[in-house]
């Protein structure tokens, strides 16, 4: 089994030793410290203990962490150096880490500087936007050669404003001159939305003229913040813009020069995180005046290491094996080959304490299914080699590492099935040979070509599916027997085996003379299920109905098995789309031009096909595990083991032997 056995640990120690103990445990990184809120409401405990905790430190460190990460974002943005394709943690010895953080004052100052500069840049950019908006507002008035803030002379009033572009300016003019002989409507400019007008009239006619204008949808504009002519202002603003731009460039340059300090800031950030987590874990501890208590989980194999830390600090401690059914975290560990497939399990759910770890069982099926659905030698090699390079170039960790490794394995499987079904970038080899060299090359499938013999592959897919489902049912039987319910295993699983195998034999066993065996197996199985499935019901009718209901579940098995037909369908999709791409590439005929067209079609087409089909294949092979396979036995909903350790983001601190 691939779950690591955990033991429960309880510790009582003196408050004076608490910092050393927590540091020691964090360095080990194998103990999960439980939340003790239950104890605080417990009648026996609550009079004695109170909750430990240091909210103030946690909050102040959280602020520092966010400042540091803001500074890192700013540095990243203006760093002109080459950025890595995938961000990974940098390994660093503990002593080196500590030595580099000796001058943390300087680094803290850098963080403050960077944030200050970045704030200035943001402020300047806001100002830039504001000025740009103002310029856009002034642009239509460039040809207006009066100061914009001029509202009139001694006897006349000047009003400027807009009418919608749909309004005819001549009509406005006419309407105005009907009211007032002396008024002048002058069209300054117009664009798609509006016409820009300036209206001059006698002071005493102003109200009347304005009324007419309003009837014609005129909106007055007042320029409060500018004085003088539009083009003078624009020139002034543009000068200011230039100045701002220069300042921004200058500041950005400063930031990009500060990017060399990024590694230091990253270390500081991680150091804050370590301190924060140490302060945060205190809230999972209860204390009295002089002593503290916590409990938690650790892998049984690590008991001795933890013992050493606790004894050094004079603690009282106790290790216990968890009771059956007790809520405990789950710690999965696989051998190197199965490990990547843990990603598939974890994407669904961590197994609960009552589950068995499905990873080793789903791994071979996932491997086969993925390969069959993609089934192209070329794609498989690209996938496997690409992932291999990623694994070697970058120190990947955690989920990402598992997924990349998973795709590497699946690439190998894909290449294998590609050979079996004769797909090498679809039918690229014969098509290219025919088009470019006028030669007939036949690439034979080692097993058969699914496009020509789809029925064979369909049957094969369904058989694989039946095996997959039977394994899932077997696991359920195993869980039932382990729980001490062999009768349930017999009635709910074994009888179904008899019925399903019997039905298959009855259907197709004629040629080998097993049809009658199948018939009797089916009858035994069906009658057995009919009689036993309702055994928990009280009344006879309830028992019978339960049996009938359960027997009706046979449609579920049918749809489960048919679901595996997607192995064929997705395999066909990859193969036929490759064919489409190759056919497109061959349309330009032979010669150099033809070769170029073929090359372009090859690169673009197959990249697209690979991407879309890897996605589809990943989703559908996962689905077969989650819906069909897990549905037979797996519950999920567990909590992953989460030890108290250094959860750093940028630097992986490597412990040194003393």
């Amino acid at each position: 089994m691939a779950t690591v056995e955990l033991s429960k640990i309880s510790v009582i120690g003196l408050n004076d030793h608490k910092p050393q103990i927590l540091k020691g445990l964090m360095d080990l990184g194998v103990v999960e410290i439980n939340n003790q809120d239950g104890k605080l409401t417990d009648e026996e405990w609550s009079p004695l203990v109170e909750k430990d905790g240091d909210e103030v430190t946690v909050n102040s460190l959280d602020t520092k962490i966010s400042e540091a990460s803001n500074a890192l974002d700013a540095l990243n943005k203006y760093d002109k150096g080459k950025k890595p394709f995938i961000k990974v943690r940098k390994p660093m010895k503990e002593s080196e880490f500590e030595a580099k953080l000796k001058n943390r004052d300087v680094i803290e100052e850098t963080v403050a500087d960077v944030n200050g500069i970045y704030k200035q840049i943001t402020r300047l950019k806001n100002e830039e936007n504001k000025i740009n908006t103002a310029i856009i507002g002034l642009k239509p008035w460039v040809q207006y050669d009066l100061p914009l803030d001029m509202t009139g002379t001694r006897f006349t009033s000047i009003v400027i404003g807009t009418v919608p572009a749909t309004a005819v300016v001549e009509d406005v003019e006419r309407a105005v001159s009907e009211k007032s002989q002396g008024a002048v409507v002058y069209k300054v400019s117009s664009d798609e939305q509006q016409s820009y007008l300036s209206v001059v009239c006698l002071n005493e006619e102003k109200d009347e003229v304005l009324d007419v204008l309003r009837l014609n949808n005129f909106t007055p504009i007042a320029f409060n913040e500018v004085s003088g002519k539009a083009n003078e202002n624009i020139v002034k603003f543009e000068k200011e813009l230039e100045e701002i731009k220069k300042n921004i460039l200058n500041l950005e340059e400063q930031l990009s020069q500060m990017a060399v300090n990024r590694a230091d800031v990253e270390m500081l950030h991680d150091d804050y995180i370590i301190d924060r987590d140490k302060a945060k874990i205190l809230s999972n501890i209860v204390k009295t005046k002089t002593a503290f208590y916590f409990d938690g989980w650790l892998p049984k194999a690590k008991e001795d290491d933890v013992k050493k830390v606790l004894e050094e600090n004079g603690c009282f401690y106790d290790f216990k094996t968890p009771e059956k059914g007790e809520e405990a975290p789950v710690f999965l560990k696989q051998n190197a080959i199965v490990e990547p497939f843990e990603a598939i399990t974890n994407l669904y759910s961590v197994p609960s304490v009552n589950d068995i770890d499905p990873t080793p069982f789903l791994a071979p099926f996932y491997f086969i299914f993925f390969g069959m659905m993609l089934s192209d030698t070329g794609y498989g090699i690209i996938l496997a080699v690409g992932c291999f390079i990623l694994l070697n170039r970058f120190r990947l960790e955690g989920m990402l590492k598992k997924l990349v490794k998973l795709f590497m394995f699946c690439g190998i499987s894909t290449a294998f099935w590609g050979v079996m079904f004769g797909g090498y970038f679809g039918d690229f080899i014969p098509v290219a040979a025919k088009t470019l060299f006028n030669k007939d090359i036949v690439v034979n499938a080692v097993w058969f070509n699914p496009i020509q013999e789809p029925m064979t592959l369909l049957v094969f897919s369904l058989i694989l599916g039946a095996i997959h489902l039977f394994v899932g049912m077997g696991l359920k039987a195993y869980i039932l027997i382990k729980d001490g319910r062999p009768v349930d295993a017999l009635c709910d699983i074994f009888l179904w085996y008899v019925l399903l195998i019997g039905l298959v034999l009855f259907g197709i066993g004629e040629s080998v003379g097993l049809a009658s065996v199948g018939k009797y197996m089916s009858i035994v199985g069906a009658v057995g299920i009919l009689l036993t499935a309702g055994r928990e019901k009280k009344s006879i009718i309830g028992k019978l109905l339960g049996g009938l209901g359960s027997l009706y579940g046979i449609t579920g098995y049918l749809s489960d098995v048919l679901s595996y037909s997607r192995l064929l369908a997705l395999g066909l999709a990859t193969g036929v789309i490759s064919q489409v791409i190759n056919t497109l590439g061959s349309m330009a005929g032979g010669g150099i031009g033809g070769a170029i067209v073929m090359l372009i079609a090859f690169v673009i087409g197959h990249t697209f096909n690979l991407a879309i089909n890897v996605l589809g294949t990943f989703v559908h092979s996962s689905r077969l595990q989650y819906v069909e396979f897990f549905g037979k036995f797996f519950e999920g909903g567990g909590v992953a083991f989460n030890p108290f350790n250094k959860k750093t983001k940028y630097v992986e601190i490597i412990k040194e032997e003393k």
Partner: protein
Amino acid sequence: MEFNGQVFALMGAAMAALAGIGSAIGIGIAGQAASGVVSEDPNKFGQVLVLQALPGTQGIYGLLIAFIILLKVGLLGGGLVDISVSQGAYILAASLPIGLVGIFSAVAQGKAAAAAIMLVGKKPSELAKGMIFTAMVETYAVLALLISFLMINSIVL
């Protein structure tokens, strides 16, 4: 040119390719949701793009069947084969499952994908579950593809 089976056969190819309508609508629906999520958090672009792409497969299945029909009637490479009216009608019938199921399932899948994108917007760690919910719809397009393919494959010209 007289009215013969080839007309039906080409109508079949066209019918199959119509599955792309569904994919276009589905991806469009998912894309609207995707833009909404990315407007809140641009870092989720990659995740939501994966979900947006899922309703695209129906269009590909349609293309696949259309291509096989074109190959079968000899429109791609070699000349058009002589096809009787009933043979052509067979091909048209065979194209119906993927053509129709493709359109409707892709729209439905697009809605499921949009919901999954919202899920990722709130809980980025649940991408896989969103993908599975979305892919549940696709099962029926896969089945339709299979039926169309098996039908065309067994028509003798």
